[in-house]
């Protein structure tokens, strides 16, 4: 029995973590630096974010490694520390998790486009392989490919992550189209679920770009298109700037009101993305398990 099967064995939904970026900002991370560099310079503050999610009840937490790939760090001195940043990210989350949660390492998009030949398939594969291997060697329990807009890039990331032998979750971001149910490149949930299942992912998911209510029909489409479990991490609505401060309008209470519908639509793993916090995760746990 692999880890994913074990996690779902009891037939209950698995609670994930919430946002990292907005939590790190609250801890004072300066704008203009790649937040992943804090794994080396401010590991204790990163660990506080990780621990806050474990304390809130997350059964799986991610790592602060979303943009820790060589293409994202192009022309920056940190490019030579990719391996160290990824390893540190996994180690920090494992330290916070102890035996209370599993650690799935985060891999985000490269930030470059295949379609305009800014990058090649080989270059992307090598890029993700370097990141995934560093994460696996540091002891990650799984790998989450997230916020992908281009299905070709996502498939290459799955290929690189699968080579580590770890379970792989593959998530796209749906934020485009009239119904906000397409990726920026126009991929539908059905197309993504089919392609990522074929690519060898163990869990199919969606994150960011949409509030939780927007993810209910998307979850339904994903669920219909694959036999694999579904993973959803929605935003706390769309951010707004009020008096120089970033405001996410959805409250934890409003967020969890949609959890039953999300589960009904087929989600097995639920958590939050931008704007969500440990309070959201606590509210999700309460909703799912009672007090």
């Amino acid at each position, binding site marked *: 029995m692999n880890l994913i099967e074990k996690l779902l064995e009891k037939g209950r939904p698995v609670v994930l973590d919430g946002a990292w970026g907005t939590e790190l*900002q609250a801890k004072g991370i*300066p*704008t*203009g630096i*790649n937040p992943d560099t804090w794994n080396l310079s401010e590991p204790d503050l990163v660990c506080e974010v990780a621990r806050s999610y474990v304390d809130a009840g997350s059964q799986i937490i991610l790592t602060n490694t979303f*943009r820790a790939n060589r293409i*994202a760090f192009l022309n920056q001195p940190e490019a030579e520390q990719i391996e160290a940043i990824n390893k540190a990210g996994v180690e920090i989350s494992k330290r916070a998790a102890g035996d209370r949660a599993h650690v799935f390492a985060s891999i985000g998009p490269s*930030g470059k*486009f295949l*379609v*305009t*030949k800014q990058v090649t398939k080989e270059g992307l594969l090598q890029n993700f392989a370097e990141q995934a291997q560093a994460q696996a060697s540091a002891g990650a329990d799984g790998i989450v490919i997230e916020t992908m*807009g*281009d299905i070709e890039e996502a498939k290459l990331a799955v290929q690189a992550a699968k080579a580590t032998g770890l379970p792989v979750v593959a998530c796209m971001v749906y934020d*485009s*189209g*009239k119904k906000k149910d*397409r*990726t*920026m*490149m*126009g991929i539908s949930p059905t197309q993504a679920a089919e392609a990522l299942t074929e690519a060898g992912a163990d869990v199919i998911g969606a994150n960011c770009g949409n509030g939780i209510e927007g993810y209910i029909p998307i979850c339904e489409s994903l669920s219909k298109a694959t036999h694999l479990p579904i993973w959803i991490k929605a935003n706390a609505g769309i*951010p*707004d*700037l009020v008096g*120089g401060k*970033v405001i996410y309008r959805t409250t934890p209470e409003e967020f969890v009101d949609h959890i039953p519908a999300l589960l009904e639509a087929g989600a097995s793993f639920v958590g939050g993305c931008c704007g969500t916090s440990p309070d959201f995760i606590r509210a999700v746990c309460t909703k799912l398990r009672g007090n």
Partner: protein
Amino acid sequence: MGAEEIAKLIEAVDETATEAVSGALAAGEDPVRLLKEGVVEGLRLIGVKFEEEEYFLAELMMGAKLAERCIELIDPHMPPNSVTTRGVIVIGAVEGDLHDLGYSLVAKQLELAGFEVHQMGVNVAPMSFIDKAQEVGAGIIGLSAFLVTTVPSCRDVVDYIRDMGLSDTLKVIIGGTATSQERADEIGAQGWAANAVEAVSLCERLTEVEQAATQNL
């Protein structure tokens, strides 16, 4: 095959557009007409479909690549001095913002629409935008902000331009997921564009206003 058919091929992101352009040039079609009523019109039609959310980024980017290849074929046939720049634009992601997807796409569309575009990269300090604009004689600075936390950096650029007394000749436009028309108005920017296609229309409008004002002097 004439300019109208080429526009339709580009609109459909049909790779045979390049063969059609070569054929039209060999048949003696007017290169200026092929460029304006064929390639540029085709791009405009892609833009309409993108704005109507019938097309996505994939079509927009592939269409831009296709148009570029067509322009490369037409360029050597253009009469001397027929290529005029519609305006000079400096563009980049503001200080604190590391996203390069959005602004580079806007830059490409502006270039294809005939603007001279200078890309500044990501995490650009406010004064660097202004220094570059003055160096290259730009009339517009395009600021990209994908994070709401970086909107204040857009305001800094607008404020510095005003404080330096450059507001009459240097306009600021903003774009990116953290921006809106309301936010542009709040910080005193001269325009906002929701996407690359709107950015082209906005720059065209601002440039025309500027040229009309100059002619009236």
